[in-house]
């Protein structure tokens, strides 16, 4: 019984990590770019949700509006970041990391200046409140189920885009061999811009989802950024299944460690990170590594 409850908790943790990390998997996996502002895109998504809610009082309707709005806002921000900054730092990954960090602190402070330091509420519609109770031990809040469904939805959407659409085909081509892709008439710059926008847009939607159960502050993104990187790195770069596996592993593990010593979540997080550091020793390329000559680049 306890095990099932734990499993459900782990599953919901995993879906949050997955949602937060999937956008990063696109930008880091496809373009080998560490976007330190990814967490701030999540934050922007959450604030977009808050703003929409102040404009539209009906919560269900506002949520329906907020999701595409958050996607649009962060998609635009991502495209702007790619065009203005990242494109000019190609082949200088460490400097990209620092430049996007500059964007990150600027965005954080702007959010603080505009929305203030206190947390803003992003309230879930009534039908998402409450919990689904199976018996005394096993219960799960509806919002977590919704997030799980959302994560599944994104996994499906991502797979559909990558495997079934022209855009996905071109993205995969650019990932594997940009020079060859360019010579076949694919514009790698355009693909980079679109995939960066897509990854950022997903971060925005993740932000709305996270905002529904967490407090919306300017530091919201910081709470998820390290875990998101861990998820991608542990899972293996350039593979959505890797991200899923990474999220699953991290979600399960943080729940298990927490349950061993429930009074001390700080210790749980410490051990979690230590585990990841040691894990990387044995699987430096993650759970599902990229293979072949492309992996050596």
């Amino acid at each position: 019984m306890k095990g099932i409850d734990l499993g459900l908790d782990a599953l919901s943790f995993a879906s949050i990590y997955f949602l937060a990390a999937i956008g990063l998997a696109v930008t880091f996996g496809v373009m080998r770019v560490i976007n330190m502002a990814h967490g701030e895109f999540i934050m922007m998504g959450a604030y977009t949700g808050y703003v929409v809610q102040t404009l539209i009082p009906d919560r269900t309707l506002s949520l329906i509006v907020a999701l595409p709005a958050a996607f649009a806002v962060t998609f635009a921000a991502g495209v702007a970041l790619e065009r203005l900054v990242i494109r000019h730092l190609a082949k200088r990954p460490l400097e990209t990391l620092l430049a996007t960090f500059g964007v990150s602190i600027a965005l954080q402070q702007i959010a603080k200046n505009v929305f203030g330091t206190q947390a803003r509420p992003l309230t879930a519609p009534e039908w998402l409140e409450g919990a689904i109770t199976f018996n005394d031990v096993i219960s799960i809040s509806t919002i977590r189920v919704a997030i799980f469904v959302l994560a599944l939805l994104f996994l499906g959407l991502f797979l559909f885009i990558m495997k079934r659409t022209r855009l996905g085909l071109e993205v995969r081509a650019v990932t594997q061999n940009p020079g060859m892709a360019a010579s076949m008439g694919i514009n790698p710059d355009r693909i980079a811009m679109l995939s960066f926008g897509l990854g950022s847009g997903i971060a925005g939607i993740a932000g709305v989802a996270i905002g529904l159960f967490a407090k919306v502050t300017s530091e919201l993104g910081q709470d998820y950024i390290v875990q998101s990187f861990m998820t991608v790195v542990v899972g293996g770069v350039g593979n959505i299944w890797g991200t899923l596996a990474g999220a699953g592993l991290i979600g399960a593990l943080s729940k298990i460690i927490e349950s061993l010593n429930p009074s001390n979540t700080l210790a749980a997080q410490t051990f979690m990170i230590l585990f990841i550091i040691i894990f990387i020793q044995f699987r430096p390329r993650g759970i599902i590594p990229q293979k072949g000559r492309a992996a050596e680049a």
Partner: protein
Amino acid sequence: MTRKPFILRNPSVLVMLAALAVFTVAVTLMSQAYGSGAVPTSMVKVLGKTLCLALAAVAMDLVWGYIGILSLGQMAFFALGGYMIGQWLMYARTEAIVATSLAQAPIPPTPLELQEATASQIFGVVGSSDLPMVWSFAHSLPLQLLLVVAVPGLLALLFGWLAFRSRVNGVYLSILTQAMTLALALWLFQNDSGFRGNNGLSGLQNIPGLDGVSQARLSIWFLWASAAALGLGYVLIAWLVGGKFGSVIRAIRDDETRVRFLGYPVEGFKLVVFTLAAMITAVAGALYYPQAGIINPAELAPIASIYLAVWVAIGGRGRLYGAVIGAVAVSLLSSWFTGGRAPDLALPGYVVKWVDWWQVALGLSFVLVTLFAPRGIAGFFDLFTRRRESGS
């Protein structure tokens, strides 16, 4: 080919040492303790701390600018150095206070009683009265001084050995160093870690045994010590990167595979550099926190280490004086702008309050520097010297 002595081959080292000496003497002559009093003691402390940050930046430059490891964990070593010296400062001072108060008692306390009373004073805030294991050496200054370099050194050695051995590189390595810092910070945040959780160690500005010395004097002494440490560290690192060792580590930065095929044990070099830099950073931290007065786990936040990288980048990496310039300029500017003393900027329709907008300006200026001046401030010096060379 004739070889000039090291110092003469590196005029920038001489210039840096001279500038440091002039600065130290000038501040001393304007201090409240030894001079005109034009520079208040609080300012002397800010300047002393800035020198420590500059030393940390020089070490960061060694790690990032020369061997190419963008370590986002340098502040972990910095803070560890501070914690190690803080243990002695806090213990010895608390012990002295407890001893004075117990001296009134009819029966003089035994050493064990004294230790217990001291421990319950220090750890009362986290609901404990036992002295944790990690404080075993806190009574001894020499031992804690040894730990200042030994603990961060060992941590760097262990972490580096694990990471370099499995050839974790580039952005992966950066993320991993960040994870290490975060793990350490979270661990220190716990109340039962033995370092007083988020209270941290405080009262570090009071040096045991020097109760009669005013803070004005102490601040100048610490300024001298910080200047000496920066000078020594600078010369040591400049010497290190000047010779064949420097040649090899720059080669590792540019193409480590090729260096391996030349027969050099790349991992060994990285380990030596990473560990040495960690120890230098720890010394800087050990000098910084007595001037700051307090240390807590927030000092280890991953963002602090990124700031260090930002300073080095703005100053110009791969050039030691660039690191010093970057650290001094950006940290002093930051404290001026965020200190609320900078005049507001009145734009049509909006008044820019720097307290609110400095962070935004800093972030954006950092993007601009990486985009348009990848060599940083030191790059402008290059332009100047190159013009002079071609002119002569």
